C-alpha cells in the first residue's frame, strides 16, 4: 500500500485549476466589457438615427458661422469650421492652464515658505491667504475677479494711458504688437541659443565647483546670455539691415482700440482666479513637504555654516521635493480641469466653445461630449506622465 507521499497527485479537473480559472475569468470579463461597449455604441447610433438626430464626426468640417473674440490661430465666422473652433478652444484652454500652472507654482512656493517664516506678520499673512482662498468656492472667486476687474477699470475712451503705448480699460490691456521684418527670426534663435549656453555653462560650473570648490557667477552669466545675446543680435541687424521689429501701437478709433495686441479681461480674471486658488493649495503642499524634512537636516546644515537661504535652497527643498511632487501633480491637473469654469465669465475655452456653442449649434451631444472628455483625459495623462518622469529624477537614489 503506497503511502500518501508516493501517490501521484490526482489530476484535478480543469475546472479547479486556478490558472485556467483566472484566464477564463479575464476572457469572460473582456467579452462582457467589449460586448457592452459595442451594444451601447450601436444602440446609440441606431437610436440617434431613429430620433433624426444627426450623428458622426462630419460636422467638424462644416462652416461654424459664429465668431470668437480670443483666438490664437486665424479664425473667422465666414470660413472656419467647427473643427477649427475646437482648436481655438483647445489652445485657449492650454494657454490659460500653462500660464496658470507657472504662476501658481511660483506664488504657491512663496506663500508656502512664507507660512513657515519666523516673522510673525509674514507667516500670519500667508496663513490668512491660504485659509481664505482654500475655503471659498472657485466659481465665486472667478466671478469676483471678473466683476472686480471690470468694475475697477474705466471705459475705452477714458483708458489709463501709459506713454501712448499701453492702454488699460474695461476692454482689457492693449499693448503694442510686434511686426516682424527681415532677420527678425534670428532674435528668438539667439534667445534659444542663450538658454542652451546657460545650461551648458551651469553644468560646467557645477562640475568645477564639485571638483575644485571654486564658484562661478552662474546667475549673472545667465542674464547676460539669455537677455544680452538677443539684444546684441537685434542691434547688429538694426545697424546693418534695418530695424527687424517695429511695433503696431494701438490707438483709439470710434468705440474701441484698433491695432496692437489685446489681453482680454476674461482671460485676466480666469488666470488670476485659477492662479490664486491653486496657489493656496500648493502652499499647503509645499509647507507639508518642508515640514517633512527632519529638523536635524537644518541643524546639521547650519552647523556646517550655511546661511538660511542656502539651507533652504540646497538642503531642505531638494529633500522636500520628493514629498511635494506627487500632490503637486494633482494640483496641476486640478488647475487644468478647473479652467473649464471659464464658461461662467465668458472666456472662450474648450468647454465654452465646444461643449457650449458647437454642441448647441450641431445638436451632436454624444460626439461633442466624447471628444471633450478625451481631450481632458489626454491633457491630464500627459501632465501626469511628465511629472512622473520628474518625480523619478528627484527620488532618492539608493546606492
Amino acid at each position: 500500500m503506497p503511502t500518501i507521499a508516493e501517490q501521484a497527485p490526482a489530476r484535478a479537473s480543469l475546472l479547479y485549476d486556478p490558472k485556467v480559472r483566472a484566464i477564463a475569468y479575464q476572457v469572460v470579463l473582456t467579452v462582457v466589457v467589449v460586448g457592452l461597449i459595442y451594444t451601447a455604441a450601436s444602440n446609440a447610433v441606431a437610436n440617434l438615427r431613429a430620433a433624426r438626430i444627426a450623428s458622426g464626426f462630419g460636422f467638424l468640417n462644416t462652416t461654424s458661422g459664429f465668431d470668437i473674440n480670443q483666438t490664437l490661430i486665424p479664425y473667422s465666422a465666414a470660413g472656419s469650421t467647427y473643427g477649427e473652433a475646437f482648436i481655438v478652444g483647445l489652445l485657449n484652454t492650454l494657454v490659460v492652464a500653462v500660464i496658470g500652472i507657472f504662476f501658481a507654482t511660483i506664488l504657491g512656493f512663496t506663500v508656502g515658505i512664507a507660512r513657515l517664516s519666523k516673522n510673525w506678520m509674514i507667516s500670519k499673512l500667508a496663513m490668512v491667504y491660504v485659509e481664505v482662498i482654500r475655503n471659498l468656492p472657485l466659481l465665486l472667486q472667478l466671478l469676483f475677479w471678473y466683476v472686480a476687474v471690470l468694475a475697477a477699470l474705466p471705459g475705452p475712451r477714458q483708458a489709463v494711458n501709459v506713454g501712448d503705448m499701453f492702454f488699460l480699460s474695461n476692454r482689457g490691456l492693449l499693448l503694442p504688437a510686434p511686426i516682424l521684418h527681415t532677420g527678425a527670426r534670428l532674435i528668438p534663435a539667439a534667445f534659444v541659443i542663450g538658454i542652451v549656453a546657460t545650461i551648458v555653462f551651469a553644468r560646467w560650473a557645477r562640475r568645477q565647483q564639485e571638483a575644485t570648490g571654486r564658484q562661478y557667477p552662474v546667475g549673472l552669466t545667465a542674464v547676460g546670455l539669455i537677455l544680452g545675446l538677443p539684444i546684441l543680435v537685434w542691434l547688429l541687424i538694426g545697424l546693418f539691415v534695418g530695424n527687424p521689429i517695429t511695433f503696431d501701437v494701438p490707438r483709439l478709433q470710434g468705440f474701441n482700440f484698433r491695432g496692437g495686441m489685446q489681453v482680454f479681461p476674461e482671460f485676466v480674471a480666469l488666470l488670476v482666479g485659477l492662479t490664486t486658488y491653486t496657489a493656496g493649495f500648493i502652499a499647503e503642499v509645499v509647507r507639508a513637504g518642508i515640514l517633512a524634512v527632519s529638523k536635524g537636516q537644518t541643524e546639521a546644515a547650519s552647523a556646517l555654516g550655511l546661511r538660511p537661504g542656502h539651507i533652504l535652497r540646497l538642503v531642505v527643498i531638494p529633500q522636500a521635493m520628493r514629498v511635494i511632487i506627487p500632490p503637486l501633480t494633482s494640483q496641476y491637473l486640478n488647475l487644468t480641469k478647473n479652467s473649464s469654469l471659464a464658461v461662467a465669465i465668458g472666456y472662450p475655452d474648450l468647454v465654452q466653445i465646444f461643449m457650449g456653442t458647437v454642441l448647441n449649434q450641431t445638436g451632436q451631444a454624444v460626439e461633442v461630449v466624447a471628444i471633450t472628455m478625451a481631450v481632458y483625459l489626454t491633457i491630464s495623462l500627459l501632465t501626469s506622465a511628465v511629472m512622473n518622469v520628474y518625480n523619478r529624477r528627484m527620488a532618492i537614489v539608493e546606492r
Partner: protein
Amino acid sequence: MKRMIATIAIGLAASLSATAASAQATLNNVKQKGFLTCGSNTGLAGFGVPDAQGNWTGLDVDLCRAIAAAIFNDPTKVRFIPLSAKDRFTALQSGEVDVLVRNTTWTMSRDTQLGLDFTGVNYYDGQGFMVRKKLGVSSAKELNGASVCTQQGTTTELNLADYFRANNMKYEVVAFVGADETFDAYNAGRCDAFTTDASGLYATRLKAASPEEHIVLPEIISKEPLGPSVRHGDNQWGDIVRWTHYAMLNAEELGVTKANVDQMTKNDNPEIKRLLGSEGKFGEAIGLTNDWALRIVKHVGNYAEIFEKNVGSGSQLKIQRGQNALWTKGGLQYAPPVR
C-alpha cells in the same frame, strides 16, 4: 452641472434603451405622471419669468398652461424647467421636458438635424441692438469696431456674425451662457452693444438701473420666428401643441374670450361650435376630449388676451401687436380652421 446631467442622460438613454421612444408616448407619459413638464426661459420678462413666489408668467408660459388645460382641464398642472439657451435642446432631446416653449427661433437646421419638430410660431420677432445713449449712436450701421455682448448657443450669435460681415464692419463678440451674465457684462461696460431679439431687448432694458440711459436701435437684422418645439417622431403630441396655439388664435378670430366662452357654447355659429366641441369630434382625434379648446380659452384665454396681458398694453413692455396681429388685421398670425 445640469448640462452634464442632461448630456449623460441623453447618452445613456440613447445607448441603453433598446428601442427608440415609441412614437405616441408623450401624451400617455404626461397623463400618467399627472403634469406637463415645460422647458422655459430662466427669466425673460413677458415670455417666461418666475415671480418672487415662484409663479411663472409670460406668453410662453401661458402656452404651456394652455396645453395643460387642454389635457387636464387644469392650467396649474405644469412644472416649469428653466433652461439656458445652450442647454435647451439637449433637455428636450433627452426627455427632461415634454415641450420646449422658450422663445426659440425656428430654423431649418434645428428643425431637421436636432431631432426636433417646431409646431408653429407664437411670436414673430427679429434681432436688434441696444446701446448706451451717451455713446451717441443712432443706427446699427454705426457700430463698426464695437464690442457686442450676446448669449451663446443662440441664432443671435450667428446673425451677428452675418450682419457685421455683410456690412463690412469689425466687431468683437463676447459670449456668455446666461441672459443675466450677458446683460451684467454689458452693464459693467464690457461691451458697447447688447444684442438679442427685439422683444428681449425691451424686457432686458427694464432690468437696467435706469432704463432711459439705454436705447434700442431701429434696425431689425433678422427673422426670428419664435415657437414651441417637441421631439421628432411623436406626431400626436406635436398635433396637440400645434393646435393648442391655433385654438387660441381661432378663439381670438371668432371673438371667443375667457369671459364669454361659456355663453359662446350656446352660439349658433358652426365655426364656434366646432371649436368649442359641441359639434364634431375634433378633440378626440388628437387624443383629448372634445371640449379641449373650451378648456384652453376658459382657463388661459385667447391669443389677444395672453398677448396683451404678458407683453402688450397690460404689461410693462407695451409691445404693439405689429406682425403678431391676426391676419385679418394685417399681421402674420394665421390659424387653419377647425373643421
